[in-house]
């Protein structure tokens, strides 16, 4: 039988882990798995080792060869449906089963190649001792084979039977609905986590106060604390949300949601052991060590129920008493109020708040037992059939609200509706609301308007009101009004004629300016039909590509070096001159434009632009345009210019007080200005010292 896609993914992970082992360790692990008769190249040996993991008869033998505690360890992993575990949780579980042997059972399974450490990038494994406080995983094919190992748990069932009419089961939709609602909220506003990977207070309060997430469950009157936070943590662990750089954002719904309610519920069960920061009595409860008893106590409760006679019922008090006696971490973590009843309240909250809505247990007169589905998950019983579907299950109201009857819901419908309608109420009949924002998000996620209207029509009991379809159409068309290209490639042609031709040939589709075009997607055009003159990166530092002519006002652009920003920026200061090929594109500084630019830019910023683009600040002519009108006006006056034969003589005239007081201003090395009324006096003073002025 060919391996399943899931097997291939996990085999790859096992192969990657093995390749990080130092060679002697890798050889010893692979040798225990493969038992080769000849010495083989390392890579070949590792490939065979990984292939062995999906070979049931060989794996059964290898599991039998393990010590009993290691066999039970693998069985626990298999029954949890979660291949990845924190080592400390596994040691806690083993201790509860009576195997307080420390790390030894994990080490034996690691050495046998049936467990693998979860490694960080480039981490080399020289021995398994460092794994003691980390995480491990196993191949699901191995975990499945180990499920048959008996855990020797006691049968806690009672002889007495409750009245049959009192038996209650859930529809299994409660948690998928809450997870879909929290997914929608994260899609609208991603949630940042603290450095310790915890929630910020504002997000915590928002989730605690959210009406939809905190809706009491439909079937039983039990309200768990911080149910919205649990939904968030759960959604993150079962692939509905992704974490990147300390931020939780919405992912696409996993394909399991297309496979029916039971597949989704198994996925949720598998994610339970990964939720540490939540407690059925205390709600959101991060611990310093990051280790909570909830994942281990929860799994033990299920396994104890699986060990009970299938037709008999278990009293939660007996489950609590067993945990009280065997699970030290759990006992120690109970709040004082829960100690008096030996944690029964904790167990009841877990059973009714988690297990019951997941369809894992049925409840009657304060007794519980696994459902057929629960026995399938934890006791290997045959899978029950998926419930029958009722496709016509919703009703679209003219006010754009959708009423959904829960009987016809399934995960696929929940996922599809979640993409374009906002959950407004969860209950026997759920309500959703169509809104512009959610329509927009659906379109952004790749959904189209026909897909939305088709979903409504397909599942609606009555025709969808035309006004609602119109509304969706209007919201969708609003999105078409503005298109933002985050990283487009623009193609600048040398003339508008060439751009026309490029459009005709399909090289570009959109005309942005008379010479610039772009493909419809903003992507790279077909380069085979282009002769590239230059390549410019819009995000690169501006290049020097303008020269200022001697007149100080004519700017010549080097077309090859110019970038797009230059074209839009230069227009703030200068007007284009008529093209005169083959000369460069030219502009002329425009006094009006310069002054307008100065309203939003300082002189220093204008100078910085000119320095970046031309290599020098704004030319004196440009400064004249810009600063001239701001300074005091030039003065016109009739004055007499006197030119001396040498600069030394001029210096003397300006130094001697008798002449200096008669000079108004020095114009140059040998020229000074004198006012008309002082002229005769200066002539006399100079003549007194023997200088006759002509």
């Amino acid at each position, binding site marked *: 039988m060919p391996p399943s896609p899931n097997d291939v993914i996990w085999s790859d992970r096992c192969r990657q882990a093995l390749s990080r082992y130092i060679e002697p360790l890798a050889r010893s692990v692979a040798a225990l798995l493969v038992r080769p008769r000849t010495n083989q190249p390392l890579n070949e040996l590792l490939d065979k080792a990984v292939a062995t993991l999906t070979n049931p008869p060989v794996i059964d033998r290898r599991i039998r060869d393990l010590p009993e505690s290691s066999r039970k360890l693998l069985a626990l992993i298999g029954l949890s449906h979660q291949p990845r575990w924190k080592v400390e949780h596994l040691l806690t579980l083993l201790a509860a089963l009576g195997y307080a042997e420390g790390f030894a059972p994990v080490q034996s399974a690691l050495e046998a190649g049936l467990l693998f450490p979860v490694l960080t990038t480039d981490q080399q494994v020289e021995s398994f001792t460092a794994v003691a406080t980390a995480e491990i995983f196993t191949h699901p094919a191995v975990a499945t084979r180990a499920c048959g190992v008996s855990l020797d748990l006691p049968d806690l069932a009672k002889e007495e039977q409750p009245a049959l009419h009192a038996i209650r089961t859930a529809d299994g939709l409660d948690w998928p609905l809450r997870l879909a609602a929290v997914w929608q909220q994260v899609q609208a506003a991603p949630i940042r986590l603290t450095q310790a990977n915890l929630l910020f207070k504002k997000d915590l309060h928002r989730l605690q106060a959210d009406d939809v997430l905190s809706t009491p469950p439909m079937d039983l009157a039990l309200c768990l604390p911080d149910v919205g936070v649990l939904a968030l943590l759960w959604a993150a662990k079962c692939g509905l949300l992704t974490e990147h750089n300390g931020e939780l954002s919405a992912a696409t719904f996993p394909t399991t949601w297309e496979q029916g309610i039971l597949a989704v519920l198994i996925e949720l069960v598998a994610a339970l052991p990964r939720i540490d920061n939540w407690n059925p009595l205390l709600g959101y409860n991060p611990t310093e060590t990051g280790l909570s008893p909830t994942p281990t106590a929860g799994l033990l409760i299920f396994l104890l129920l699986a060990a009970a006679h299938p037709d008999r019922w278990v009293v939660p008090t007996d489950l609590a008493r067993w945990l009280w006696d065997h699970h030290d971490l759990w006992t120690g973590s109970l709040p004082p109020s829960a100690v008096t009843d030996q944690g029964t309240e904790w167990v009841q909250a877990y059973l009714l708040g988690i297990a019951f809505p997941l369809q894992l247990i049925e409840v009657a007169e304060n007794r519980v037992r696994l459902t057929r589905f629960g026995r399938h998950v934890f006791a290997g019983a045959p899978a029950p059939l998926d419930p029958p579907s009722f496709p016509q299950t919703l009703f679209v109201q003219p006010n754009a609200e959708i009423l959904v009857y829960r009987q016809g819901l399934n995960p696929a419908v929940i996922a599809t509706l979640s993409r374009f309608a906002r959950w407004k109420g969860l209950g026997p009949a759920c309500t959703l609301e169509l809104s512009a924002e959610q329509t927009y998000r659906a379109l952004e996620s790749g959904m189209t308007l026909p897909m939305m209207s088709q979903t409504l029509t397909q599942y609606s009991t009555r025709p969808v009101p035309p006004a609602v379809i119109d509304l969706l159409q209007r919201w969708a068309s609003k999105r078409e009004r503005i298109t933002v290209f*985050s*990283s*487009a490639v623009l193609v600048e*042609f040398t003339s508008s004629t060439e751009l026309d*031709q490029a459009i005709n040939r399909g090289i570009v589709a*959109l005309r*942005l*300016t008379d010479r610039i075009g772009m493909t419809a997607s*903003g992507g790279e055009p077909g380069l085979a039909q282009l002769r590239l003159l230059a390549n410019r990166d819009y995000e690169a530092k501006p290049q020097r590509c303008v020269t200022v002519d001697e007149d100080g006002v004519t700017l010549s652009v080097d077309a090859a070096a110019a970038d797009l920003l230059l074209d839009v920026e230069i227009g703030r200061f200068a007007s284009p001159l008529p093209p005169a090929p083959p000369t460069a594109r030219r502009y002329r500084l425009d006094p009006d434009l310069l002054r307008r630019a100065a309203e939003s830019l300082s002189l220093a910023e204008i100078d910085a632009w000119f320095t970046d683009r031309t290599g020098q600040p704004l030319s004196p002519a440009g400064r004249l345009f810009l600063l001239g009108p701001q300074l005091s006006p030039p003065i016109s006056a009739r004055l007499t210019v006197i030119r001396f034969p040498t600069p030394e003589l001029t210096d003397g005239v300006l130094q001697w007080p008798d002449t200096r007081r008669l000079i108004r201003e020095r114009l140059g090395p040998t020229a000074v200005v004198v006012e008309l009324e002082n002229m005769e006096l200066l002539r006399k003073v100079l003549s007194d010292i023997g200088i006759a002025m002509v």
Partner: protein
Amino acid sequence: MTINPTGRLSAKLHRRVCLVLTEDAVLAEELLARKKLAAEVAGRLSEKVLLIRPGRLDAVLDELRKMGHTPQIVKG
């Protein structure tokens, strides 16, 4: 200058350009009238095309959404 209808066309490529295309010029004017948005606009390539300053995409999207617009985002 005559152009060979099948020959290669001379062109310059501008990569990683962030821009906003509006349905009409009035809408572009409306966007430019928003002070915070105008500050992120490097220039107007044409009456319907606004060039966004490098690295300011998120600020532009935030502001567009605050204005009640639902822009279509095309990622490069």
